[in-house]
């Protein structure tokens, strides 16, 4: 039987786009949470952490409902957007931790040496925190790639094709049914 690699490629593409889409807002928000104190700062952090404590099915259901309210047709791009929102808290959590681990004196020293906020971020904070940021991206990618609830709903509702976790489940399920039928016959 020929091997069908399409679920793997589709899942990789789907998770990569979702991670990229999540990383774009995650980076500045993580920096804000790590380095600035503003009204509602803790509220934003708490709201992001809330995603960890709610079952994925519930999160995805509300994200889909939100997409429906927003009038999005649930296709490839909407599926990726839902996955990005689902991945965002993980990225935020890990990136914030990484940036907080960079000694604040480094950034302060850079400022006294004439660097503005962008230069301080790009030349000091980012290079010193890159390992933690990369860890965040990898974990976020794996979440988008491997989460069963998310990939099943994305695959079934958006009709974007079979993603790897759901394809694996379907294959195992089919094999089990075939065996039962053979036993019955």
């Amino acid at each position, binding site marked *: 039987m020929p091997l069908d690699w399409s679920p793997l490629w589709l899942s990789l593409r789907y998770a990569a786009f979702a991670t990229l889409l999540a990383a774009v807002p995650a980076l500045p928000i993580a920096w804000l949470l790590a380095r600035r104190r503003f009204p509602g700062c803790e509220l934003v952090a708490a709201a992001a952490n809330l995603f960890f404590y709610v079952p994925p099915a519930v999160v995805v259901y509300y994200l889909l409902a939100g997409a429906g309210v927003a009038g999005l047709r649930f296709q490839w791009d909407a599926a990726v957007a839902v996955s990005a929102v689902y991945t965002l808290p993980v990225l935020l959590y890990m990136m914030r931790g990484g940036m907080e681990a960079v*000694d604040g*004196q*480094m950034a*302060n*020293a*850079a*400022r*006294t*040496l*004439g*660097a*503005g906020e962008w*230069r301080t971020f790009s*030349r*000091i904070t980012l*290079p*010193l925190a890159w390992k933690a940021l990369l860890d965040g991206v990898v974990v976020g990618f794996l979440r988008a790639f491997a989460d069963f609830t998310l990939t099943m709903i994305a695959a079934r509702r958006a009709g974007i094709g079979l993603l790897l976790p759901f394809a694996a489940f379907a294959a195992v399920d089919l094999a089990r049914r075939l065996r039962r039928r053979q036993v019955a016959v």
Partner: protein
Amino acid sequence: MIHVRLAAPGVDVEFRAASGITALFGAAGAGKTAILDAIAGFTKPQAGRIILDDQILFDAASGVNLPSRRRRCGYVARLWALFPHMTLRDNLLFPLAGLPRLERHRRVNEALERYALRDCATRRPQEAAPDEQLRAAVARALIGEPKLLLVDEPAAGLDLALRGEWHRVLRQARDDAKLPILLATRDLETCFELAGEMLLLGAGRILQTGPPRLVLDRPASVEAARLLGVRNLFQAEIAALDPGRNTSRLRLDQFELTGPYLPGRLRGDRVWLCVEPGHLRATAHDGSKPAANQVPACLERVSQLPRAVRLEFAGGIVAEVPRHEFERQKDNKDWLVEFPPDALRVL
């Protein structure tokens, strides 16, 4: 010249500092770092004004608050804060980003030469020796030609050799740059070694200012004396004043002393008396009647200092005597402690 007047949580100070090193001396939590942070622009005080060479860096009344990058304050952090992902040369290049390439390299080469960093310029900070790191930190803070240098007690925890090197580098910076240097420190020796002026800080307030020698010799209050580590602090009552002989008689809990005349004081006033341990004379008591200002005392504890011996007597009297003097009479049980009248300081 910098003029600082600021009020922030736990800090309320006003002072001026001219060219040279001004030490902010105080215990942990006295507000030294809070003051430096406010001047550097890392924190925003609630009230006050900071003026550096006629430029307003911060003024709460008019809402002026320049960002750190525009204040032209060099900053040497506690652990040097050299950027670990850059070589020492790149660390020195960092503040010169806006200058033409040739000028940047001229200044960096000059700084590498002046601070003896040429051989380690291509190393990263963690690969450099500790003395090279401290020289690089000072060189980087000064290479952008700041108008003020802030130094946040980096000598804390340095070994003796490094501390000597640190003092040498800071003296060199003071002589080369000729700018005000604010040095936060908890080390009295560093104050004496480097600072021309000293601000004594306690609980966010300035308790006393002046040259270190003067501050240590004449603490302005009991609080100041305690912060300076003055060991012999006694409450006394003025029993007599004799302007003719220029003397006074001071009654302590268990003995009386003759001191200098105290202008502006009245008989019966309660005062605090302090004496440097090194100024007391401790000798063996042979049973004879004590002379004036000699007090019989029972030795409770002996501790070794690097160059002397500290004797702690009953009643809170502490004396420091040279080691050879103590060795001659170490088996002695009863002692006489002499308070020379000119060593008595009344607070």
